[in-house]
Every structure is written in C-alpha cells, then in structure tokens.
C-alpha cells in the first residue's frame, strides 16, 4: 500500500492489499473484546457444563462422572420446578409491566422538544446509579414491618398491625421492575426516535385516530426495539439475584439465588446443572418468542 503509483497500475493487487489491511484492523478492533468474552464466558460455561455431569458426594464433594442425575433431580423434585416456575412467572410479569410502563415513557422522551431532554434521560437512568443492594436496603427501611410507612400508618391509626410488604412476591416484582425499567425505556426510546414524526402525522391525516395509529404504525415500526427491550428485561428478570434475596427474604426462592446457594453448599455439580437449566430456558424462551413475533410481522 505504500507504493501508490504501482498499486494504481495494478488494481487487483491493491484491492487485495486493502482487504487484507481492513481485516487486520478489524481484528485489532474486535480482538480484545473477543478474548475477554472467550476467556470470561465461553471457557467457564464449558467447565460448568462438564461439572454439571459430575456427581456430588457429601464429604468428598465433586466426583468425576458422566451422569444426568443432577438434571433429573431438578426436574423430578417439585421444590425445584416450583422455583423455576416462580422465576419464569416473575420474569414474565416484570417484562410485561416494564413494556406497558416503559413505552409511554420512552415515547414522551423520544418526542419531547424540551431542552431538558438530557436531564430527563438522566432521570430515567438514575435508578441504575444506585446498586441493587443499596436500593433494597433503602426499601427495607421504608417498607419493612418497622419501616417508615408502617410506623407512620400505625401512628396515625389507619392500621393496627404492620402490613406485610417486604418479603413478598409483589415486593420482588416491584424491585425487579425498578431495576429493569430503565433498560426497557432506553431501548425503546432510541427506536422510537428513529421513527419520523411525519409518519405518525401521515397516519393521522389518513384518518387513523391515536389508537389505530399506534396499532398499525407505531407498534409494528417499533417492534425491533420492543423485541430487544423485552429480551433484555426478561433475561435480567430471569437472572435477578440481589432483589429476590433482599426483598424476597429467605422463603422466596428464585433461580439466581438457588444457583449461588448450591455453590455455597459446595454442591458444584448441582449448581452447575441449575445454571445450565436457567441459561438454556432463558435462551430457548427468548429465541422462540423472537421467531414467533418475527414470523407474525415478517417483511
């Protein structure tokens, strides 16, 4: 590439040269991230999968084996399948509520003309500045049986017994929504911003009211963002750890804490199997939903 003159005289050589150069620079650009992902994700997953086929013996811990007994144990014990379905239910509810709450918010953010737009976006992201644990701790002081809300209501005399807010499924769902909503809003906002306002106006001028416009134009056009946001919040919901532990209390079980619990008990094979079930279920469910939606709105 250095000899431009010769290179121009023989164009094919130059083209190849450039392609080689761009491959090289592409390699430099994506290389480090690839290495980190491979080392930090793929390798552990492989090891984990191998572990999940091992046996667990008290005292000796992990024993080398090739058995599916950990998976069988999970799916035959209603204790574990219940945890799985609770997790699925919570994740689905959270995702649905995030979509319903997030879409209008994202729409307003995308369409607003105010110069405070950046501040508004900042406000949406703000909850993410507070870690899950800190937020949960804050909620405990607020909603606990001796928390601010219950104490105040009892002092006023509206209630005589403290309400059970903490350590319920509702508390966990609310907590996960609080964490996931910003992801949904930001994803939707960027997609809605890409839809020109003119297109909505065209629908209005053709006789579509706001609802018809939403159903026929905005929703299908925002679908890629809706899918992305939904997948993101669903995955985050399925894998929630801190929120179910802190807001759900010891009796409320979800998959994330279950995995960690098994490792704490030094049952690596079973923990690895639960991890794999969680990961596979999340993957299969999002992929299936994605395919179904794409098929329905295929263009």
């Amino acid at each position, binding site marked *: 590439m250095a000899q431009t003159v010769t290179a121009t005289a023989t164009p094919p050589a130059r083209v190849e040269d450039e392609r080689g150069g761009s491959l090289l620079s592409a390699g430099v650009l994506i290389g480090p991230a690839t290495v980190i992902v491979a080392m930090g994700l793929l390798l552990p997953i492989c090891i984990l999968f191998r572990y999940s086929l091992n046996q667990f013996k008290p005292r000796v811990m992990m024993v080398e084996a090739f058995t599916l007994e950990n998976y069988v144990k999970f799916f035959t014990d209603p204790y574990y399948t219940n945890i799985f379905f609770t997790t699925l239910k919570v994740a689905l509810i959270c995702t649905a509520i995030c979509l319903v709450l997030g879409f209008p918010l994202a729409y307003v953010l995308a369409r607003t003309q105010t110069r405070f737009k950046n501040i508004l976006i900042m406000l949406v992201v703000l909850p993410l500045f507070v870690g899950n644990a800190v937020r949960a701790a804050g909620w405990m002081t607020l909603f606990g049986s001796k928390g601010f809300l219950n104490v105040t209501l009892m002092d006023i005399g509206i209630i005589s017994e403290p309400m059970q807010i903490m350590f319920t499924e509702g508390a966990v769902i609310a907590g996960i929504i609080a964490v996931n909503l910003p992801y949904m809003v930001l994803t939707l906002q960027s997609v809605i911003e890409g839809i*020109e306002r*003119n*297109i909505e*106006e*065209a*629908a*209005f*001028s*053709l*006789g*579509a*009211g706001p609802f*018809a416009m939403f159903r*026929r*134009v905005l929703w*299908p*056009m925002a679908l890629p963002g809706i899918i992305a946001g939904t997948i993101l919040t669903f995955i985050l919901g399925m894998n929630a750890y801190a929120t179910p532990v802190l807001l759900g209390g010891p009796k409320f079980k979800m998959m994330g804490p279950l995995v960690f619990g098994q490792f704490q008990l030094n049952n690596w094979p079973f923990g690895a199997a639960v991890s794999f079930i969680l990961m596979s279920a999340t993957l299969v469910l999002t992929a299936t939903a994605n395919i179904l939606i794409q098929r329905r*709105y295929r*263009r």
Partner: protein
Amino acid sequence: MARLQLQNVTKRYGDFHAVRDVTLDVPDGEFLVLLGPSGCGKTTTLRIIAGFVEATAGVVLLGGRDVTTLPPWKRNAGLVFQNYALFPHLSVAENVAFGLEMRKVPKPEIAPRVAEALRLVRLGHLGERLPRQLSGGQQQRVALARALVFKPDVLLLDEPLSNLDAKLRQEVRIEIRQLTRELGLTTIMVTHDQEEALTMADRLVVMSDGSVRQLGTQQDLYERPADRFVAGFVGRSTFLEGAVEASGKFRTDGGLDIKCPNGSVGPASLALRPERISLGTGPLQGFDNQLPGVVDFVSYLGANIDVHVRLPSKERVIVQIPNREGGPDLRTGDSVHVGWAASTGALFAGAERGAEALR
C-alpha cells in the same frame, strides 16, 4: 372536493406570530399555492388546515363545515409530505389502502380503489413492492395515490417536489397539475420555489412574516406586485432607492433622474425587471429612460445572459438579455447603454428596505 375557507387565522407561539390574520377563500377545484421564504408561515398555515396545529384565533371551514377544532383524523384532508412519510413496513398497495381501511370501506371495495389510484399515478405494477424498493419519484407518486384514494375534500401538498432532482421535478409538477384538474381537487400547495409555484397554481398567495402579502394570479403578482417584498420575491427586480419628486419623476439616492409611473411624492423604491430593460453597445433611442453604463459583471446562464450594469451614479441595474446568435460579446468594463420605458418600473412608497429576493 370542497371549498376551503380560512377566516382571520392566527397562530402565536408566545410573542412570536407564526401566522398573522390570514384569510383565504379557495373555491372548489382551485389549485392554490402558498409561496414564501422559509419561516414565512406557509407551512404552519398548511398544518393548521391539516389539523396538526391549532389556530390561536380564527376559523377554518372545509366544505362549509367548521373544522377549526377537529383533530386531523376527523378532517377529510389528503396530505403529501416533503419526505413522503410512507409507511416503511407496509407494501405500496397497503400504504394506499390505509386511508380506506381507516374509513371502514368494505374490503371488496378496497382492492379496486387502490388499483385505480395506483393506475392514476402510473404505478399499477408496483403494488407489492415496499417503499424502500422504489425511487424517490415513485415514492412521491405513492404518497400522492395514498392521499387521493379516499377522495379527500382538500389535497394538501407540503413542498412535494423538493426532494426530487431538477428534471424529474419538471415532469412531476405537470403530472400533479393534470391529475388534480382531472379529479377536480381543491389543492393547497406550499413551496418556496417560485417557478414551481408559477407553473402549477391557479392563484398564488405570497407570504412573509406570517402574513399574506399578496393573493392573485401569476400576472397579478408579476406585473402588479403589491409591495416591495413581492416585487423582489416573485421574479427578480433591481431596486433603485430614492424619492418621487413629482408625479412621474424619480430621483435616485445617487442623483439620477428617472421617468417612472405616477406615484405620491416622497421616499420610494423603484423596482425594475431585468428582462424589461434593453441593452445596446451604442446609444439607444425611443426609451423614456436612456442611460450609459459600464458592465460590472456578466453571468452566462445558457438561454439568457445577466449583465450587471453600473450606471453613472454608481448604482447598479441587472439586465437580462436573450442569448441570441450574433449578440454582443460583453466583458467586464465594456461601455454599454441601457434603456427602459417609464411604465416598466414599479414604485413602492417608503424607504422600506426588505429582503431583496434575488435568486
């Protein structure tokens, strides 16, 4: 297809008047063009008619019905946007069918009407395509078909041609005009392109600063501009500043005495159309005004040549001469003579020095 009336329509944003007291009466089937520079309020006026902007004051009547406070989807107005605003996820035929579906037209009726509308814009064979698979000109025609198919009371065109290249634009404007005439559509078009406006309009409205400056036919605007702004915006004018000393006598600031149409005594501007001034290399005869000058600048436009001539008073006039075979080969610094009839100039009283809209 209906009569459209705007009565004293005003739109204010805080202290800013986007539209000031606009009154228009557009009879059924007329093609009216709103013409003006950007920010003159023409687009806001169109959006008030379409229902996207609510007028601060005034009334909009469509076919005698008061639609002032109706939302856009309850007005029967077909709108074509500058960027076409086609639905990218729907096929051409589905785009065109949209307005009919919203009006709950029975299914079996929709297909033939869509086909008919696409045939009108000569796109009958492309119904299955997606908008992004079409050229700009084709997309524009889809937008037109989509706005026509439900038989709107009024067709609104918002700079519909500005995204097309120059050659296509000339074809499409004739097509649109023929189509609206054939269908007897009341049409309002917004544009800043005066050539486009002059070719297509039955009548034109020149707007500036939110107000209507003049409403009339092409001849009205060109031959009898109501004010200095219109004289500068529609066609071109060279303005000479000065004062009317006595009826028919104008004295420029530079000290030239010029014969002009009758007007009241006092400070004024005299507007001269470049193509109405004659130019010769020797002294001219038979003109009310005959002056020597020096060529300052020549711009060769192909069919015409613009010659900027500096008069003895250092004031400048632009003369447009046809590019005829054997015409003078003018260069900067050449001595020339210019002449024009007293009736050529248009007088505007007052020392108002608005924007001279030279192209």
